[in-house]
């Protein structure tokens, strides 16, 4: 046994396809449930800031006045908390990674629709103050 314990393994490996994939010629495998990056459908967002509050790394910044939703891809740890807490289901997780980058960037800003008008504009302004 002592000297030839590897033999079985070696023969099995010889008759088998390589265990590695030739990335990037062949795409990397990833499971459907894999958390790769966060996607937003800006049109559905109501800028309620729930995601900003639930984010453990403070990667999301929602500007209620200017109506933007911003994510810092390098801060995000893809924990899925924002997706679970979003009341309008406008966030989702995709199973591919953010593209690699060579300089520190990764801040993405999305414009979200303005707040639906209610009665008078003056009321609106005071509410967006927060």
């Amino acid at each position, binding site marked *: 046994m002592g000297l030839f314990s590897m033999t079985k393994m070696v023969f099995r490996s010889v008759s088998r396809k390589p265990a590695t994939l030739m990335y990037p010629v062949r795409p990397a495998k990833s*499971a459907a449930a894999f958390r790769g990056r966060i996607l937003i459908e800006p049109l559905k967002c109501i800028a309620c800031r729930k995601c900003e509050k639930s984010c*453990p790394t403070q990667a999301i910044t929602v500007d209620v006045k200017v109506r933007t939703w911003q994510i810092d891809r390098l801060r995000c740890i893809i924990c899925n908390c924002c997706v679970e807490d979003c009341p309008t289901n406008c966030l989702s997780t995709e199973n591919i990674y953010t593209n690699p980058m060579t300089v520190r960037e990764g801040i993405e800003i999305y414009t979200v629709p303005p707040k639906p008008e209610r009665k008078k504009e003056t009321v609106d302004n005071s509410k967006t103050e927060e």
Partner: protein
Amino acid sequence: MSKQVVIPFGPQHPVLPEPLHLDLVLEDEKVVDAIPTIGYVHRGLEKLVEKREYPQYVYIAERICGICSFIHGMTYCQGIEGIMNLEIPKRADYLRTIWSEYSRMHSHLLWLGLFADAMGFESLFMNAWRLREHILDDLEATTGGRVIQGSCKVGGVRRDISSEKLDEMASGLDSMQGELHDLVNVFLRDSSVRHRLKGTGILSKDDAYLQGAVGPTIRASGHSYDTRKIGYAAYGDLSFEPVVASAGDSYARCEVRAKEMFTSIDIVKQAVKKIPDGPIDMKVTGAPDGEYFARSEQPRGEVIHYIKGNGTKFLARHRVRTPTLANITPLVTILKGCELADVPIIVLSIDPCIGCAER
């Protein structure tokens, strides 16, 4: 007495996956003393507990270690649940157990690979990591993360596994067992491996106990000490025996880890059979007020999370005693009297994880 020289070993060294520094005092080729230094990768994670709400801190607790991440997150959650007297649903307990054992298998396969690499046995290293890939794939498909799972939360777990997937996982492990046997066979039977490991770095039974070794390091010295036996999560319902070896040398530590993977497979299969239906989490309200010591068995040994809450969303104190820290003292003992050429093997045989020892 011949002249003594001091040789620095680490923090950057080909066998070391992580930065540990040892000052080796040599007489000729013999190590007479070793002075360890850590502190190269301190990140101050425990302090962050004052800045993040306690449910969010789970993600930081998980990042204490890149290999035993799931169990760190789980132990932290157990601590909070202990303070707040929460009884989490049984299904969540079982899922935690299953993922813990998957983490153990992936950690042990990683270590076996690194150990083979340290011995210079490259193809064995590749084979160990190829098997590890199956384990990681299952973790990815069930939790959404390969190494940092993020599937544990205070009050339960965040994802359920369907019963079909559970059966598939159990049968996947079954079919992996044959290959795993062949792999373990090489580690335990191959004459060159045995020649390299037998008798190097002997930790006696008494030393192991007195110096507070934990995990496979103490079990390889003949103590049947396994924190899983206190019955946290679902371990109380499952039957298993800790793997024990008596020689206390590097070979015994390798043997314990290799055989533990089969225990893990057995535990997962039992858990898949017994897992009850029901909810996977519960609503947690309020904030923890009080203190708690949560203990669990990491792949490297017993980990302790001390948590102190003050009734607010931010904890007052969080302190972790990781297995590697406990194993450094016995490491220094076994290094005394060994040959310089054996130092890399011996250091790796305690499975050092400096990242989590320093946090």
